[in-house]
């Protein structure tokens, strides 16, 4: 029984970026609406008002397409680095990871280590070339030398699939979290999140979105540091004593600091590692951030700043999670009469915040947690809107004949539409186990976006035909295998046994996408193919040196 619970928690975790979905999954059973928390609501209002102010400021400076999608390319490396880290320092990292460590120990850190392993790879393989080749979206890069229409369409489908699934996870998690923290009804929570998000993104574009991320990240780091250092002080900065206390207090004893052995067969192990290392490289809203800086040099520095912040935060999480065992476990203030944690498992980090800094700290961190939801949802929506307005409408359907203003207007309609969709999805999936939608997002990203992007940047012989068929294969195979996997067939549809026994299709769908792209490229002898292959050298030179990239506006 215990193993099942552990398994379910970890399963949710390692399924990727939208860890809030984990919060949603495990919150189902024991959602305890908190009474209206006035300090938190006040801080949250302060946050909302200031970010709306920023949106107003940003709106006045957002005039062109370039401004709207990439903030004119004038975001500094430090700003971008903080904004990128913000996408990974989510509410679920702060709440979910600390909780996972507190209840299940060592394994809770797996996602953190995975993220820190993938970012250097993003730096070496993607950051510079992407910046040197692209304009607004990663699809611009992919269609650099390949026939625009078919490539844009398949990449857009991959991109939008990832975003929609990710969004479902975020919406449900956000609704439940707000319900938990602020005592607000789920429906109102979901509506409010979407309305705010529509305001930020449609009026302020990438500039507002970036600054919302930055502010939230800074607040989260400050709050987290306060709590983390508080924990260390509690143990006199003696790590051994902190772990010793955890071992002595926790029912799992020495097992809490040791790996839990949840991954036993080699296929799952490899699949998990692959998904973690490469899945993040296909997330459109992350890739889009590389276009907001001036050049490749700034892009490199952004990644460094981002990893420094993320690494620091994950180390804090480690200390908070284990330290909390010694502080919270036998503390009656945070447990009810039956011995269960007040508010459910996800409240752990907030209880520690309360312990360290009282109601103010609790209110502050609750407001910051809400801020993280808004920030990530905004980034996702902007990425989706850019794909719809820029890649689909402007470049494909209207064949490049849209003016800047028309394109921005279509983006705004898209944003509104996505906001409405977000509300509907949130309502539809409120009581579902949304853990599996995150698998879909990560697996699709790794099986469609990542192969197409990598091959188009690095492989001379890739042709449109190969890329389109390969990408489509990746999309269909990954979606199908997920539908047949344990999380969907057993978890959501209630069958006894799944047809596809593994949680991640990545091990199969990703190599297959590469292979199919290869086969159909090398067997492509058309005139168009020859032209595309010949065009590689120019792309190659530009991708490595940045000659000819568009100039940036300053911020």
């Amino acid at each position, binding site marked *: 029984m215990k193993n099942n619970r552990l398994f379910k928690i970890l399963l949710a975790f390692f399924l990727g970026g939208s860890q809030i979905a984990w919060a949603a999954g495990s919150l189902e059973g024991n959602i305890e609406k908190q009474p209206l928390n006035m300090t938190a609501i006040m801080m949250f209002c302060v946050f909302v008002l200031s970010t709306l102010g920023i949106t107003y400021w940003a709106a006045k400076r957002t005039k062109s397409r370039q401004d709207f999608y990439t903030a004119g390319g004038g975001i500094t490396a430090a700003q971008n680095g903080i904004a990128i880290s913000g996408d990974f320092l989510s509410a679920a990292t702060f709440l979910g990871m600390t909780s996972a460590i507190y209840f299940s120990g060592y394994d809770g850190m797996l996602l953190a280590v995975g993220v820190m392993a993938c970012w*250097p*790879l993003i730096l070496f393989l993607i950051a510079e070339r992407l910046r040197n080749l692209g304009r607004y979206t990663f699809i611009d890069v992919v269609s650099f030398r390949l026939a625009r229409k078919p490539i844009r369409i398949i990449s857009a489908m991959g991109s939008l699939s990832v975003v929609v699934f990710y969004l479902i996870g975020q919406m449900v998690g956000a609704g439940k979290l707000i319900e938990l923290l602020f005592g607000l009804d789920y429906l109102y929570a979901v509506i409010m999140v979407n309305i705010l998000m529509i305001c930020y993104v449609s009026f302020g574009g990438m500039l507002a979105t970036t600054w919302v991320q930055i502010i939230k990240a800074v607040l989260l780091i400050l709050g987290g540091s306060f709590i983390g250092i508080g924990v260390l002080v509690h143990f006199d900065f003696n790590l051994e004593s902190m772990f010793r206390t955890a071992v002595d207090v926790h029912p799992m004893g020495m097992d809490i*600091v040791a790996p839990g052995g949840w*991954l036993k067969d080699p296929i799952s192990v490899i699949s998990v590692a692959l998904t973690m290392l490469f899945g993040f490289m296909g997330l459109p809203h992350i890739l889009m951030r590389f276009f907001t800086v001036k050049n490749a040099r700034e892009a490199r520095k952004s990644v*460094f700043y981002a990893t420094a912040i993320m690494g620091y935060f994950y180390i804090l999480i480690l200390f908070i999670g284990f330290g909390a065992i010694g502080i919270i476990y036998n503390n009656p203030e945070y447990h009810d009469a039956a011995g269960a944690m007040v508010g459910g498992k996800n409240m752990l980090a907030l209880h520690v915040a309360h312990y360290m800094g009282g109601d103010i700290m609790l209110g502050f961190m609750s407001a910051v947690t809400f801020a993280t939801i808004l920030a990530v949802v905004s980034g996702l929506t902007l990425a989706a809107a850019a794909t719809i307005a820029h890649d689909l409408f402007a470049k494909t359907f209207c064949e490049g004949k849209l003016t800047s203003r028309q394109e921005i207007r279509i983006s705004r309609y898209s944003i509104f539409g996505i906001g409405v969709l977000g509300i509907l999805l949130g309502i539809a999936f409120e009581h579902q186990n949304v853990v599996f939608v995150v698998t879909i997002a990560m697996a699709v990203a790794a099986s469609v976006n990542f192969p197409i992007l990598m091959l188009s940047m690095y492989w001379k012989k890739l042709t449109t035909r190969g890329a389109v068929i390969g990408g489509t294969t990746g999309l269909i195979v990954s979606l199908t295998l997920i539908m047949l996997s344990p999380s969907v067939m057993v978890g959501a549809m209630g069958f006894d046994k799944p047809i596809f026994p593994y949680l991640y299709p990545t091990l199969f769908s990703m190599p297959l996408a590469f292979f199919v792209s290869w086969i159909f490229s090398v067997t492509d002898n058309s005139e168009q193919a020859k032209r595309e292959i010949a065009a590689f050298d120019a792309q190659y030179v530009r991708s490595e040196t940045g000659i*000819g990239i568009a100039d940036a506006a300053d911020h």
Partner: protein
Amino acid sequence: MSEKNLAQYADHPKFKELVGKRVALSYLLSVIVIVSFSSWVLVMSFAPELLALPLWEGAATNIGIVCILVLLSAGIIIPGIYTWWANTRLDRLKEEFLKEIQNEK
């Protein structure tokens, strides 16, 4: 600079030197990252007792915890190394390359 003009530089010695160095460092660091992460995952799956070994007799802190701290720190240090090296050495090479092709025009 038109696309046709750019293609001719793919064989330029300075360009090749530039790319060669970048790729070499990228490969080296990528291998370090992938190998260390993968080994950790493999040990975690197939030989978890190794990670549970305490740092010293009777300690609660074990090798596994140290591994996590090392891997997290590496995630900061390795990009730092690459960024510093690329922004100083590589960009200098790139400037030289750009000057050369300007002169050759």
